[in-house]
C-alpha cells in the first residue's frame, strides 16, 4: 500500500481526503504510483502530468522522505519507506502565481 498526499485542489477534484492509498503491483516508482492513482481517481488524469507527453506539469512537484523527486527518472524505484507505507509520496503544488 502506497500513501499519497494530494494538494488541496486535487483533493477537491478526487473528492478524497488529503492522504489516499493506492496499490501498486511490482516496483513502486513515480510512474507506477501515478498510474495507480489515476486509475483509482480518474478525475486526476491530466492534472498531474500531461495526457500526451506524460511529463510532470511544471508547477507540480514530487517529494518523498524529505527529498525532491521531481527531476528523478519516473521509473526509478521509490525509497523503501514509501514502498512499505511508513512514509507518503507528497504531490505538491508549487508556491507560485497570484
Amino acid at each position, binding site marked *: 500500500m502506497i500513501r499519497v498526499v494530494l*494538494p488541496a485542489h486535487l483533493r477537491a477534484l478526487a473528492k478524497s481526503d488529503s492522504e489516499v492509498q493506492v496499490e501498486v503491483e511490482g516496483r513502486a516508482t513515480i510512474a507506477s504510483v501515478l498510474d495507480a492513482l489515476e486509475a483509482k481517481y480518474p478525475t486526476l488524469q491530466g492534472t498531474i502530468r500531461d495526457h500526451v507527453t506524460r511529463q510532470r506539469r511544471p508547477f507540480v512537484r514530487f517529494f518523498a522522505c524529505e527529498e525532491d523527486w521531481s527531476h528523478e527518472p519516473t521509473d526509478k524505484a521509490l525509497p523503501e519507506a514509501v514502498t512499505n507505507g511508513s512514509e507518503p509520496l507528497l504531490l505538491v503544488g508549487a508556491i507560485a502565481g497570484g
Partner: protein
Amino acid sequence: MSQVRVLVGTKKGAFVLSADGKREKWEVSGPHFGGWEIYHMKGSPADPNRLYASQSSGWFGQVIQRSNDGGKTWETMDNKFVYDGVPGTHQWYDGTAHPWEFKRVWHLEPSLTDPDTVYAGVEDAAIFRTADGGKSWQELPGLRAHGSGPHWQPGAGGMCLHTIILDPGNPQRMYIAISAAGAFRTDDGGATWQPINKGLVSNMMPDPKAEVGHCVHHVAMHRSRPDVLFMQKHWDVMRSDNAGDSWREVSGNLPTDFGFAIDVHAHEPETVFVVPIKSDSEHYPPEGKLRVFRSRTGGEEWEPLTNGLPQHDCYVNVLRDAMAVDSLDSCGVYFGTTGGQVYASPNGGDTWAPIVRDLPSVLSVEVQTLP
C-alpha cells in the same frame, strides 16, 4: 414568472447569479471550483439545467465540469484534448515555427438542439466537439488543416479560439474566431473551413488586408438574421451582411474603436452594444468613464449609456466573453469587469446597477432565460 440565471466565470471560481424576471433581487451562488480560473460557463439551449464549465489552472491544467441541475452539483468530465494526427506548427511571436500545444479551453458552445453535443474552442487554436456530454472530445481537424494554419500567430493573450457561433437556421454552418488568425466559417458541419476576413484592415500587419492574421476579439449574431455579423476587432467595429464574405467598418462616432466585448439586443437585430476601451496598451475605459455604447442603427451611430455606471476614476476592462443579453420582453444586458463587478441593465441598457461588486476578475458572463 420567468427567471434569469447569470453564469459568471472568474479568475478564482464560478458564480451563478439568479433573479426573477424583474431582475432586482439577486441570489449569488459560489464560488464553485474556488481558486481555479473559469474561462467560460454556458448552458444548453436544449436543456437549460445542463451546464458546462471550463476550469483550468497554471498548476493542474484543464478540467471540464458538467452540471445536470442548473449548477447546484457538478460532475468532472473528460479533459483529454488531443490534436488530431501530427499537430504541426504555427508561428510564434517572433515568427519562428512553434509546435501546436494544448493549453486551455476558452469557450464552450453547447449545441442548439442536443444537450450532449458541445463545441470547445481551445488554445492553441482548434475546435473540439463532444457528442456524449463531455465524456470524450474529438478535434474537428479541418480548421487547422486549412492551409493557413502554419501562418497563424498568437495574440497577446495566447493563440486562442475564443468565439463559436452556431447558425440557428443551418446546422451545417458555424462561425469561429481566433486571436490572431481571424474569423472562419464552415458550411459543412466543421469538415472544411474558409477564412472570412475580407474587408478587415489591421495596420500592424505586414499586409494589413491579409487573408488571415487579424486579431478578431469577438463576433456576435442575432438569431433571426444569421447572415448579419457584428465584430469587435482589436481596433475597429465591423459588420458583415453576407455571413462574413465581406466586412465594413461601423465604428462611426465611438470615442475609441478598440475593445473586446460586443453583443446584439435580443429583440432588435440592429441594436448592438460595445464597451470601448482606450487602446491596446491601455486596457481601461477612456477618461475613467465606464460606458456601454449602443447603436440602434446596426453601427455607425452610437450613444453612450452611463446611467448607473461609474463615470470617474474607473479603470477596469471588460473581456471578450464577458457580455451577454437575456431574452425577456425587456431585454436585459449584462457585463462583468476585471474589477469583479457584474452590471445588469433590465431595460436594454438605459439604466444599470451592479449585481455584485467584489468578485474576482471576471473572465466570462453568460445568461440563461428560464421559464
